[in-house]
């Protein structure tokens, strides 16, 4: 029994390593100074899919991402690690989407894929830390969700059993496929690239990427259809355009501010006995401690 799995992955700026040059003088973010990476928890999501593929031969993993042309990088990364197929959802019409409009576009694309048993996403993307897209996609598709998944315990007779990691403990739940799961960072790390797959998919590319390549190059890849990464625009999916991008986003950014902390006038002390003795006396006398 092979499963049909769709993994949702996002390309994100690496906000974990925001250096000084990443912030412009006016307090806005200089996106160009941040490397674009595979959203970390989406790698955990991919690993869960790959494990199911190990367990159930014939499993097919489609990686789906919505983003600019460059986001095809995460699809290739996924192919190198064992995904079977990639879809890039890209169009100006999707730009400026909040999580609701994002999940609408993604749900429409998933409807076009049509045949799926399981949709796996990361718990949250590190650019917004919202953790909203997974559950919102599930609702739009009208299927259940299991969030904070740490491990797929089993899949048997169309029933999936999942261990969830919550703030105060764990929960094991089960439900019938199809459904959406969102995977925690505490789940198993993703396996590295596979050397064979790297060779195989090195030249995989989307239509937009091919537009810039030479004729010879195109001839070389043309007879290998698996090198073709699907690229879908708004015209390729059935959707209500009003619900996409900026117009489909109820939330608007009103204001962006730099963070300023009130600097205090601090008393400087050494690590010498005198200074610390003095300090402790003070803290006791003014009842801060004791």
């Amino acid at each position, binding site marked *: 029994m092979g499963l049909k799995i769709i993994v949702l992955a996002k390309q994100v700026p690496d906000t974990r390593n925001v250096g000084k040059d990443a912030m412009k003088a006016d307090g806005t973010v200089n996106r160009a100074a941040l490397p674009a990476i595979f959203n970390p928890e989406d790698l955990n999501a991919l690993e869960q899919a790959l494990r199911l593929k190990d367990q159930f031969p014939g499993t097919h993993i489609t990686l789906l991402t919505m983003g600019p042309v460059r986001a095809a990088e995460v699809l290739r990364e996924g192919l190198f690690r064992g995904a079977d197929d990639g879809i890039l959802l890209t169009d100006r019409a999707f730009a400026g989407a909040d999580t609701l409009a994002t999940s609408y576009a993604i749900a429409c694309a998933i409807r076009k894929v049509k045949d799926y048993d399981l949709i796996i996403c990361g718990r949250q993307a590190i650019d917004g830390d919202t953790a909203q897209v997974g559950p919102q996609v599930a609702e739009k598709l009208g299927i259940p969700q299991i969030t904070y998944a740490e491990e797929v315990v089993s899949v048997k007779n169309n029933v999936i059993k999942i261990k969830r990691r919550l703030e105060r403990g764990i929960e*094991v739940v089960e439900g019938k496929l199809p459904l959406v799961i969102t995977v925690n960072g505490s789940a198993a790390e993703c396996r590295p690239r596979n050397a064979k797959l790297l060779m195989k998919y090195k030249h995989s590319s989307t239509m937009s990427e091919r537009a810039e390549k030479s004729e010879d190059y195109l001839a070389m890849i043309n007879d290998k259809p698996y090198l073709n990464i699907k690229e879908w625009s708004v015209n390729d999916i059935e959707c209500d355009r009003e619900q996409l991008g900026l117009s489909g986003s109820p939330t608007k950014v*009103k204001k962006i*501010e730099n963070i300023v902390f009130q600097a205090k006038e601090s008393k400087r002390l050494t690590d010498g006995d005198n200074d610390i003795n003095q300090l402790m006396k003070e803290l006791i006398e003014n009842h801060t*401690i004791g």
Partner: protein
Amino acid sequence: MNGNIHKFSNSQIFKLKEMNNIVVYCEIEEGKVADVSLELITKGRKLAQDLKCKLEALAIGYKLDSIGSQVFPYGVDTLYVVDDKRLEHYQTLPHTSICVKLFEEQKPQICLMGATTTGRDLGPRVSSALKSGLTADCTNLEIGPHTETKTGKEYKDLLYQIRPAFGGNIIATIVNPDCRPQMATVREGVMKKEIFNANHKGEVVKLDADKYVSASDFAISIVERHMEKSKVNIKNSSIIVAGGYGVGSKENFALLYELAAVIGAEVGASRAAVDAGYAEHERQIGQTGVTVRPKLYIACGISGQIQHIAGMQESSMIISVNNDPNAPINKIADYVITGNIEDVLPKMIKYYKQNSK
């Protein structure tokens, strides 16, 4: 489901302002309303006063007779209760169905939920069904006017949903002009829990579970559940000794526990210290941990990145122990001790003992 009904027309929005209420979703664990929900009710009470509307709360679970007496002192006017054996433990679909149907009936203008594993599971599902916006992890909520830059259209009394963005490097104010309810989640400890009036009495409205949930809402079943009561209580501690990556090892953290035991404090940690395995996740303070406001905060080997400061800047007094005299945290500290924690902490312990006798 046709969500378009939730995009209210302009005239409706105008009317909404007068009449529609704020609702707080209450998380309940073993018959007790979670702190995060009481914190949101406290905030909701203030917002309701600004908007001159009522504050409502929604409790879903089993054996909920005491919920009213728990939430009314914090200012709840109306408590909706859905009490049913099948709802004993939180589950996404039944709770979603109840929220969605209730909000369709009551059309609240604002809905607040905890940014917990429950609220962050439920909130997006509900907002997706209602096609209303949702802003995660707000650090502040205010009421204010808004003008759409493109259309020039003016709005009175919107909810400003203020949250850190881009890994906490900037603060964004988000508004949701046209869709209702305006939904936001807030992490535990970010808002303060305060009794509004110990004698405040609200009305309990019991809802019939069968009218709100259907059999298909129980598609996911809970097979096993192991929940632990939280062991650490840094949020309510008046003194916190917090350690960072600079503490250097789990063993060195013992020094912090020793100091904490002597002066009656709880031990907290930075994310770098938690990630390095020096301390448990529950102890993490900051944007993605808990927010604390102790009388005294002793930061040991913590550099003071914005995401950490966001969770402790409201401490009444801050002492920084750091071997780098220019550590960013020193700017917001009342006392800066320049030195190694290995030297400084034993001395603090020694001189506290000497002087307190």
